[in-house]
């Protein structure tokens, strides 16, 4: 352990550059694209994944070895993106989900665009790192739009009628929101006198007429709410998650969302700290409750696993919104645990899609996979339990800290709503698990399995990796205390 610590210590100067992770990721993406030009697609994806892996490790190291206890800027001159410990922690999660997504092999994507899709995911992860630490409205806006463009493309990458439809609708809705975003920029930066950093903005909008300031802020909140997929800005979520290629949805549902939650959190922590914005926090709480109820209830009767995960994602965002205005650290922690679990779930689905071409994506169709695809099924189960918030899984800590923070702020009722939502959520997560393990496989599937056992199976290890991360981080705090958690997400 000490040797490792020394090594990390010697790497400090390099880690201090928050760019390093982004640069590695970007380099991986470019290298992948270059390799793609020479038609070596496997290498291309491997290169992108490698870049993601490197970025994950670097970010994690940066998180564990915080350079300063205070919030640190990306560099001394441009204090527009936060890369302090907690943000590096979340960034490493974003990169990790992107890594899982790429590592799944993206087998459901058509071969000719596989590497570009991977590269898009990589760029998305970079955008995510910027987004989650954005300390500047303009940076936030551009990062959001970058993420949005990538998201549209990822949904459309499935190349089916349904995915086209989902992408178009997503795009139209997103465009309206972009309009709102520009309006928000106009109000905040325009009326704020041309400053865009949160620090100066806080001072500047303090001088504005209350109505104008609130308008700008609410516009931004709406935009971020759309990005995270909170009720009532949620409509795109189920469509997108269901119809995007599962491997790409793995990033879309996890890293992209976690980054948006991060950006949302920073917005609240840095900009909305002044008194006049308390109503905004209250409004977000209402949105949280609505999201939790809507997401959980609407997910109950879904037949498609992806769509169900989409609705459940709405609910999960609701939990994050609980913590948003209360405890940034806990919100980031929750976002991370959610992201890893969601990515693992989708990566497992990607595996099923490839391993069982006959699977129609429905919950009932998973019947018997618990026996035929043990590892992937187990990974999916673990990720779903984590999403439920069961102890021994990472998801428990995420929810626990958020709810604890809410309780400590005198909002125990909010925690209770969230907890009840968790109970409802097992109604649909449990149905998936039930299908996997308790339902007999139909005869056709068994036959297929016997035939297809010799064929090359897709990667199962990314889902296993995700699941082990979930379990390890779920158990570790019990053994070594909670400092580990605090260390990763101290702000």
């Amino acid at each position, binding site marked *: 352990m000490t040797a490792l610590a020394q090594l990390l210590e010697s790497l400090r100067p390099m880690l201090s550059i928050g760019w390093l992770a982004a640069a590695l990721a970007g380099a991986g993406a470019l290298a992948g694209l270059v390799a793609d030009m020479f038609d070596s697609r496997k290498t291309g994806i491997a290169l992108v994944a490698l870049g993601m892996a490197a970025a994950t490790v670097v970010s994690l190291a940066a998180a564990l070895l915080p350079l300063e206890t205070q919030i640190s800027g990306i560099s001394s001159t441009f204090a527009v993106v936060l890369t302090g410990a907690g943000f590096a922690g979340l960034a490493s999660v974003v990169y990790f989900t992107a890594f899982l997504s790429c590592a799944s092999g993206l087998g459901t994507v058509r071969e000719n665009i596989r590497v570009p899709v991977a590269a898009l995911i990589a760029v998305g992860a970079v955008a995510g790192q910027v987004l989650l630490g954005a300390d500047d409205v303009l940076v936030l806006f551009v990062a959001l739009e970058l993420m949005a463009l990538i998201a549209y493309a990822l949904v459309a990458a499935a190349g089916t009628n349904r995915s086209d439809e989902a992408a178009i609708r997503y795009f139209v809705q997103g465009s309206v929101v972009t309009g709102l975003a520009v309006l928000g920029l106009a109000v905040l930066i325009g009326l704020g006198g041309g400053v865009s950093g949160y620090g100066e903005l806080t001072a500047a909008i303090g001088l504005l007429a209350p109505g104008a300031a609130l308008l700008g802020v609410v516009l931004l909140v709406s935009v971020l709410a759309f990005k995270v997929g909170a009720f009532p800005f949620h409509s795109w979520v189920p469509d997108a998650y269901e119809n995007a290629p599962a491997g790409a949805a793995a990033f879309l549902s996890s890293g992209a969302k976690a980054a948006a939650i991060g950006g949302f959190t920073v917005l609240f922590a840095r900009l909305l700290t002044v008194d006049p914005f308390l109503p905004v926090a209250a409004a977000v709480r209402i949105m949280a409750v609505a999201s939790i109820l809507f997401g959980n209830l609407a997910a109950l009767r879904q037949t498609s696993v992806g769509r169900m995960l989409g609705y459940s994602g709405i609910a999960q965002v609701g939990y994050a919104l609980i913590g948003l205005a209360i405890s940034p650290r806990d919100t980031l922690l929750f976002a991370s645990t959610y992201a890893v679990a969601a990515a693992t779930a989708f990566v497992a689905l990607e595996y099923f899609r490839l391993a069982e071409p006959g699977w129609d994506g429905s919950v009932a169709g998973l019947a018997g996979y618990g026996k035929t695809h043990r590892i992937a099924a187990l990974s999916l189960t673990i990720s779903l*339990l984590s999403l439920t918030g*069961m*102890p*021994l899984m990472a998801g*428990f800590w995420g929810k*626990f800290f958020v*709810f*604890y923070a809410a*309780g*400590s702020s005198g909002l*125990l009722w909010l*925690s*209770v709503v969230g*907890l*009840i939502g*968790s*109970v409802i959520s*097992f*109604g649909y997560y*449990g*149905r998936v*698990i*039930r299908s996997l*393990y*308790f*339902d007999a496989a139909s005869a056709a599937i068994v036959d297929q399995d016997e035939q297809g056992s010799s064929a090359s199976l897709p990667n199962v290890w990314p889902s296993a990796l995700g699941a082990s991360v979930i379990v390890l981080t779920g158990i570790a705090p*019990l*053994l*070594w*205390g*909670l*400092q580990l958690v605090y260390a990763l997400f101290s702000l």
Partner: protein
Amino acid sequence: MLTLPALILVPLAGSLIAVFSARRSATAPRVVALIAAVAEAGVAVAALVSMLATSGERLMWVSGGNNAVATSRLVADGLSIPLVLLTALLGIVAVAASWRITDRPGTHHALLLGLEAAVMTVFLAGDLILFYVAWEAVLIPMFFLIGGWGHENRRHAALKFFIYTFAGSVLMLAGIIAVVMTVRSITIGEIGNAIPASTQMWLFWLLAIGMLVKIPVFPLHTWLPDAHVEAPTAGSIMLAGVLLKMGGYGLMRIAIPYAPQGFQSAAPVMAGLGIASIVYGALMALAQTDLKRLVAYSSVAHMGFVVLAISTGTALGYAAAMLGMVSHGLVAGLMFLLVGSLYERTHTREIARFGGLGVTTPRWGGIFVFAALASLGLPGLSGFPGELLAVLEGFGAFGWWMIIVAFGALLGAVYNLTAVRRVVHGEPSTEWTHLSDIAPVDLAAASLLAIGIVVIGVTPGVVMRLTDPVVTVLARALGGGS
């Protein structure tokens, strides 16, 4: 004190080995599981011995040493040790009960041992977080046991079990959050800032609701018959024998100490729930046509006594609750073992189809009669001391309501003896003339439980000597001397 972590690690290790041993042969997992369960029992006894050696107060183990800021701690005292021993014993019985499982034996035994580890953790948890974690972790293996190895309606029952008890325990989590944020410590029993009395009024119910669901009391009980009936035998044994005890343990360990004033105002209601459970459970058991369902409802009645005893808030009441829990663990374990063993050979639980089993399977019949007598609270067997004390103390606290309790005890005799008459007595049904008697493994397990039942029944003092120090403290905190 490494015995405490060992109590958790031994079954966990056994669980892992069981999974991998399944590749070797189909019978390897059960051997592994049995070894692990016996070793676990050995460790439990070792814990008991070392606790008695250290003047019987308590054992403690802190992860990461004492200097760490936030650590998990394990504590074993008089409240936990009896239940730990019970769990270890039932662990062995459960493995024996699933001796002939052929469907994925590795996973089954691994889940069983994992369940045991989780339950152990509940009883040993020294901080609230660990307590809750273990409390919920118990659901996972149980869910899979019911769903994976249960009977016809297992799919629905597993989900219902999970969601119902999960709903109760998340409210408990809200309560735990409220506790921690007020007392500023997660160590159980460490109360820095006193919780305001007005808060305690709702806090107690928030904490207790999850436990009351687990116990379960009327009218929060409907998950239980479904779960019990559908669960495989080993699952039923653990469910009735150990999982329900978590509720009573939690009340005494968490809910009441943290919200004593809330408890005092809630005690009559809780006692009412307990009394209602006693009568209601007995009546429901009387109405059953399914033998396993009957036993399941009898659990409601028995645990009603535990709730009643706890709600007296006296030292003897607590002791009665502990006795009741240990006893019910043994008796219900035995009952489910017997019903499971019967089901395995007849593939039915329909009471009406049995009859005269005392003639065809005399050993099984004899033990069933014994179990029924134990279940109805016959003195000399384990059920009696707890029920007697519950009535004695309940009379002191709640007066003539005990008339209902006493009649509830009578109803207990009614359904048990009715079951005996319809299953064991009478002319043997032609359907089962060639039924083989109870298997040797089951017989051994049953004898183990029967010995426990007799020992506790004759000398309940052994349990109470263990519980004495901690119960004294807890009862004094409530302001009740006796």
